């Protein structure tokens, strides 16, 4: 019998659809945890909180992979719309509220209620939630999200009161903005995604960017996103 010839599948499309499916499952899992954790005793809640944290991390990563795939294939419906900063900050804070509570971390927000800015809501909210999630891992007990206009740019800062980024991460953070190849493995998916999203935001000859530094109000690590 002749061996049947297999048509080589479109692997990237297959992966994208698998990621999509996994993302939906993660969504259900997150909903389940957020609904059921409050019913546990406080001690058990604290023990279970890392589970929610990890599930959210996986979810973030899947969302990022999907977005990177779509942007790369020129299919991402980039939605440059005017958004109220007040609404944006409140929504981001609310999305992370439960996890912060379980983990005993307080989030301070600082923003201009009147401010509105043009950006793709889903992408920027993805970047900031990811940055908050990261910071939760490194902080002692405080996070700060500040959104201000500075010199014609929107500056979003995520700061914590932990020990700050190690030198290797700072280096990677500075390199990603200068076009270092993701495939070389020198930067994480999160940084790559954040930088890609920042660069999609352009206005009148200026382009968005990200940077990492240590310091800020609490002297810990700071993730900074600038949008023109």
């Amino acid at each position, binding site marked *: 019998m002749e061996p049947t010839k297999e048509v080589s599948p479109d692997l990237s499309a297959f992966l994208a659809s698998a990621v999509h499916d996994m993302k939906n499952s993660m*969504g259900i899992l997150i909903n389940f945890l957020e609904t059921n954790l409050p019913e546990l005793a406080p001690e058990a809640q604290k023990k279970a909180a890392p589970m929610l944290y990890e599930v959210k991390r996986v979810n973030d990563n899947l969302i990022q992979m999907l977005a990177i795939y779509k942007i790369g294939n020129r*299919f991402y419906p*980039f939605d440059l719309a005017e958004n109220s900063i007040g609404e944006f900050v409140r929504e981001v804070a609310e999305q992370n509220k439960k996890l912060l509570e379980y983990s005993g971390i307080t989030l301070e927000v600082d923003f201009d209620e009147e401010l509105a800015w*043009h950006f793709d809501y889903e992408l920027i909210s993805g970047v900031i939630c990811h940055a908050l999630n990261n910071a939760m891992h490194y902080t002692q007990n405080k996070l700060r999200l500040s959104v201000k206009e500075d010199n014609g740019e929107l500056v979003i800062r995520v700061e914590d009161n932990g020990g700050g980024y190690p030198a290797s991460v700072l280096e990677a953070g500075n390199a990603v903005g200068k076009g270092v190849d993701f495939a070389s493995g020198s930067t994480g998916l999160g940084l790559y995604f954040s930088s890609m999203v920042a660069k999609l935001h352009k206005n009148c000859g200026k382009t968005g960017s990200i940077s990492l530094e240590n310091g800020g109000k609490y002297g810990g690590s700071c993730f900074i996103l600038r949008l023109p």
Partner: protein
Amino acid sequence: MYIPSNTSSLFVGKKFLIIDDFQGMRSLLREMLKSFGTREIDTVTNGKEAIAFLEKNKYDVVLCDYNLGSGKNGQHILEEAKYRELVSLATVWIMITAEKTADLVVGAAEYMPDDYIIKPVNEATMRSRLEKALAKKEILVDIAKAARDKDYDRTLALCDKALASSKTNTTELQRIKTGTLLSMGRYDRAQQEFEQILAKRDVPWAKTGLGKTYFYKGELEKAQQIFRDIINENPAFLEAHDWLAQTYEKAGDLEEAQRALVRCTELSPNSVIRQRNLGEIAHKCGDLETAENAFRKTIKLGQFSIHKTPAAYLGLAKICSENDTPGEALQILKDVHKEFENAETSLHAKVLEGMVYKKAGDRINSEKVSKEVASLVKADNGHHSASIMLDAAQLFLATGNKEAAENIAQTLVKNNHENTQLLAQVNDLYSQAGMSAMGEAIVNKSRQEVIAINDRGVIMAKEGKLEEAMRLLGEARTLLPDNKRIMINLANMAVMSMRQNGKSSDLQQIADECLKQVAQLDPQEKWCAQFQIALDAIPD
């Protein structure tokens, strides 16, 4: 810590409809809405039920899942509800979706939801999006009403007032304002507005608007350049692809238009209208394979859509005939009579039936159908759409029915004497039948006749004999009910006469009818908007 502000007054007394095929999701949404203070909530599980509920009730907010399994999807329901005015301008429509798609985000403005929420849905997002959308509707509902009623001056005034008094909704207001200027044919003003917006913020909708002004002004190369720039920067921006295709088509570059439409349908694979456009352009380009595929998709998608269109059936029948599968062509044409209970469409199907027989070499049947069509057309005084008339003329010529062909060609030319594209098509039909000299003679003679009447009318009007001029053009209009130039001149004369002698209900009616019909024949006719403004300015 963030404490939700007490805005439950926005929710109280509002009527909600939830459309979702999953029981779990329906109860989740219902519980959320209840916790916001809502009491009146209906839930349905599919498109059919949704339409039935929308027909019976007036809702303030519709929460609709995009993917509803088989049958209509969320976008189909939204389009049908808007098209049939089952929802009012004040209704908030929020689409809930697993995936952000180009249709939802950058699709056709008139069929876009007010907002979309990407799953998983959480209470905080739902609440804040609903509050935002409801507050926005309250501010914009008067403006939306004025815009729908085509009360342009009022729309502009309301937009300016809102822009001056509030910092929120700036983009939405600017979009309505510039859109109104385009509808009024005030392209220079619109261009100025777009350029001002773009100087501050490089947003694709405003850049697309600038491209549209160039398109309307006939500066097609500039328009093309702008649409291409937008697509370079923002590859999935659907509206720019749509307009790029239109611009290429208008410039006569059908192959580029097809390429742009192919990209459109990749980004928006479920749009009936885009698939149909692709089918028609590909057919004109002679790319039968692409055209056939696109028409088949159009028919399949149209099953659930308000945009279901006979054009796809007729186009596919033509292609099947060209591909020498007359059996399928005849079957499709039979379906047309069933699927669209409409005399005009049935007539068109009949015309094509004759052509299919002719192509298949069935002389007896083709001549029989040709005669039937000729008597139908004669009975209706030739008052049909240009595409039917062209196909009918082709059938008459192919079956040797010269007299019927000449009648129809004359009517076509006289009704469209300034439409160079159509005149060329009539000439082509005669050349293909090996009678180019005859075709040219018919086209020229008929054209001259109309021009002569029109000129006479305009001269009379200039000499101040308005009444006589209107009588002449009024008679011409009865004979040539689709001639835009005659109607525009007639409307203009009615306006002039009322300016001199005050308002008269007869003249008002003539002007209204003419403008309405011209707008129907050619939505892009810029004179319409200008005469409408002049007409509205006449004091009672």
